[in-house]
């Protein structure tokens, strides 16, 4: 059983790692602000989401699992809303210039 949950954790955390990598590479390499924002949101949502998912079986007790989910929820709410607003800022800028 431990072996199974550990394997699950390793797979999920590695997946999260991959999305962080993709997000960082996209942020550095993509040509314009909106494309870079697109790359960033993947790291924000999937990267952190997969890591939280992978760590859930490792947490001891319901309280710490709830905390993990709360972290994810806060990051998710903030990230999603702000991505939209940042896109609006970037659009304002391009339409002005």
């Amino acid at each position: 059983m431990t072996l199974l949950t550990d394997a699950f954790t390793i797979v999920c955390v590695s997946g999260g790692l991959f999305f962080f990598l993709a997000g960082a590479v996209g942020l550095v390499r993509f040509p314009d602000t909106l494309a870079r924002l697109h790359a960033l949101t993947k790291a924000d949502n999937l990267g952190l989401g997969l890591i939280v998912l992978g760590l859930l079986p490792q947490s001891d007790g319901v309280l710490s699992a709830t905390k993990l989910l709360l972290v994810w929820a806060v990051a998710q709410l903030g990230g999603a809303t702000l991505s939209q607003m940042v896109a609006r800022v970037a659009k304002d800028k391009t339409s002005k210039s």
Partner: protein
Amino acid sequence: MADFFFIAGALIVAITAVGLFRVLRGPDDADRVMAAQLLGTGGVAALLLAEVRGTRGAVDVALVLAFLAAFSGVAFVNASLGEGSGDNTSEHTEDDALN
């Protein structure tokens, strides 16, 4: 397992730090903020991994960082949208206040 968590956390910080290149280069302030946001999310992930490794309270730091990343993001958006558009509230906030 603890080693795996440590290495994963270290890698995430290293990877997201690469994004800091955008703070350097810009060109827009939005790009810079995005890089800081990515580092923030990476830091949160690394802290969660540290908590599972046994650093007590790291998850609370993650919670605080996630919350305040949203807060400073709001400050950025608010400041950037505020500039240029002339429909600021200052006029009547002030009148309300004096009454």
